[in-house]
């Protein structure tokens, strides 16, 4: 949270300082739109805080202060980020951007005239993946798919699982492993200048913002990981790289969009992977009892190993 405060314009920072430490730790998003009121999302509800008894409207000046701070006074250094529409800042927080988009040959070149900022506060949920460990570890880690609809906590789960794998677990006698992460959307590790901002253990190597299929091959060739972690696979070339990795003796942990195993059978790019039985465990997440609800854990034939609700 403190890192996020540093990039905010002075007035907004002042408003946030009015909140108590407790309230501040529950903030999920800080949204700023030029000429519109400052919005702060707490527990999924919007708040429009006051400054000197009046609703605070974001000015053009606030926006240029914000851009200056995000870019360290060097807009050219944000070229890639302006193309993707978000900036990852220290602490793994993310600032989403919107405004006037400039295209070149039909592709987005950059966002100019940024009018909306959305500071999403990253919160690492340490220990959320602990209930999974006994199902996914049997003398060695198993190839695993984490399945769930959007916002069901797939990436959060994957991040904590990565931490457990890289740190090892003394109580369960699980040794630590070399873990390679291909982080195409900079969400697992939240890297700033290539250095992970989340706690992921000491034995983690991250290819930040790297296309998944290519990144997996790069990792296999150059970094000799024992476990590869990849977020949101789904394209055909991803599957090819996964087959390559599994046959190279590397364990894979991936996430996929979808609600159940049947969804995977219906997707042509995933069908082959599932039918080949390379993935020994499939973890289904749902949003029923909040993000991170473990709906079911299945083995490669689709038989359930466990069905119990844990938050």
């Amino acid at each position: 949270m403190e890192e996020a405060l540093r990039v905010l314009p002075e007035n907004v920072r002042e408003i946030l300082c009015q909140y108590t430490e407790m309230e501040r730790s529950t903030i999920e998003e800080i949204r700023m739109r030029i000429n519109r009121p400052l919005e702060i999302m707490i527990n999924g509800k919007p708040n429009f805080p006051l400054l000197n008894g009046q609703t605070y409207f974001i000015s053009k000046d606030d926006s240029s202060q914000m851009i200056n701070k995000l870019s360290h006074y060097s807009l050219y250094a944000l070229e890639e980020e302006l193309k993707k529409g978000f900036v990852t800042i220290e602490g793994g927080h993310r600032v989403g951007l919107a405004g006037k988009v400039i295209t070149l040959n039909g592709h987005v070149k950059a966002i100019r005239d940024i009018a909306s900022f959305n500071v999403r506060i990253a919160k690492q949920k340490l220990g959320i993946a602990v209930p999974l460990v006994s199902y996914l570890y049997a003398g060695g880690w198993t190839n695993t798919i984490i399945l769930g609809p959007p916002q069901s906590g797939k990436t959060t789960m994957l991040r904590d699982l990565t931490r457990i794998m890289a740190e090892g677990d003394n109580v369960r006698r699980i040794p630590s492993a070399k873990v390679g992460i291909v982080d195409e959307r900079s969400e697992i590790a939240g890297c700033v200048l290539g250095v992970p901002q989340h706690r992921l253990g000491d034995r983690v190597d991250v290819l930040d913002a790297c296309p998944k299929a290519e990144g997996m091959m790069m990792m296999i060739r150059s970094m000799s990981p024992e476990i590869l972690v990849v977020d949101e696979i789904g394209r055909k070339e991803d599957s090819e790289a996964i087959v390559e990795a599994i046959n190279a003796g590397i364990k894979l942990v991936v996430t996929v969009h979808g609600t159940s195993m049947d969804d995977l059978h219906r997707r042509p790019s995933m069908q082959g992977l599932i039918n080949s039985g390379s993935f020994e465990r499939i973890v289904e997440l749902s949003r029923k009892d909040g993000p991170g609800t473990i709906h079911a854990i299945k083995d490669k034939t689709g038989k359930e190993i466990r069905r119990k609700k844990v938050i």
Partner: protein
Amino acid sequence: MKLLGAVLIILASTWAGVEWSRTVSERSRQLRQLKAALQSLEAEIVYGMTPLSVACSHICRQVGHPISWFFDSFRKKLDAGQGTAYEAWMESMEEVWKYTAFKQEEKEVMKQLGATIGQHDREHEQKQIKLALIHLEREEREARDNQMKYERMFKSLGVLGGILLVILLI
């Protein structure tokens, strides 16, 4: 005694002449340094996409005084993070300018560059720096011409002036 006095006068005026000619050559030397600094700033921006404050700390190590003072002060102001990059640029110029041999023309060029620094994409930044370099090139040529013309003249003027003074006094 008279002879000693005469020698002292000639020595003093010679030294004054050399100093004087140095201010002329100093300007072209500093212009060369400033050009080198801007060229490496361009490389940092275009090829390295390095943020300004980091780029400036690199440049500081490459060029001599007083140019390095300017970039050092600019970097410190950026790190402090108050106001805009243009304000930091202008304040640093005010601080350091009196230690340089630059004239009004260079000030204008740097002011123009400061107005756009760090606020555009790479291509635009590169164009602005190129433009500044072209202007500085012209100034440097002029400074070199002046140097050729006046440097020797000031030196001989110093010696001859001393001799003249001695003759008049004898």
